[in-house]
């Protein structure tokens, strides 16, 4: 039996999950996106360096995956901010950067339009808002 694939699978799943949640949370609360972007970039590069220097194959694999995930998360801060501008992710009215987005982008909203179950048909913006209210 070879556990390396299993270790890679668990590492990939957890790093995607944690990265996914962390990017949304940090983008929503941080006053700038360059600080989280640079932090994720630095952590990603450091983790990749550990992957290069360790002799343990399991650690090498795990660090390699976590490092690349962190580098991708660095890009995701900008992508998430764009989703907020388009109204595809909610703005945080307590974050001055998001307040600016709300005033500059008509499509931006404080509502999370994805927070409901599917209904099996196309819905208008108003219907979408009613559906999340009833959820």
């Amino acid at each position, binding site marked *: *039996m070879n556990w390396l694939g299993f270790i*890679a*699978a668990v590492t*990939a799943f957890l790093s995607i999950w944690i990265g996914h949640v962390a990017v949304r949370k940090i983008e929503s609360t941080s006053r700038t996106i360059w600080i989280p972007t640079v932090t994720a970039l630095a952590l990603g590069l450091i983790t990749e360096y550990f992957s290069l220097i360790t002799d343990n194959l399991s650690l090498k*694999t795990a660090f390699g*995956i976590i490092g690349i995930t962190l580098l991708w998360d660095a890009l995701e801060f900008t992508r998430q901010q764009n989703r907020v501008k388009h109204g595809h992710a909610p703005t945080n009215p307590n974050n001055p950067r998001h307040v600016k987005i709300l005033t500059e982008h008509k499509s931006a909203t404080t509502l999370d339009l994805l927070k409901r*179950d599917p209904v099996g048909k196309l819905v208008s913006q108003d219907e979408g808002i009613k559906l999340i209210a009833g959820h």
Partner: protein
Amino acid sequence: MNTFGFIIGIATLLIIGLGFPLVIRGERYLGYLWWPYMMGIGFFTIIASLFILIDWLSVVTGVLGATFIWGSTELKEQAVRTELGWFPFNANKIKPPFEGVIKKWKAPHL
């Protein structure tokens, strides 16, 4: 110093990249109610990786399995995106076996 981990990281990024069209197309043609099947494929793929003795192939197979499991948790939200018109909506989806049973389960979202 060897680059095995770095190359595996890049391979993971590419495999996860395949997960995006998998979720988008999978939801469009099949619907989010196929999530238990996608999750099952993921688990079986990860179990299969245990029996692959070539390290890089075992890792790629494991990550592919993780991508299927992650994709299964994204199908419900993707279905809502299509209903809002953010992605093309298809009303004529292929229904999954045991649809009635699956509807009673809460579709996962992380």
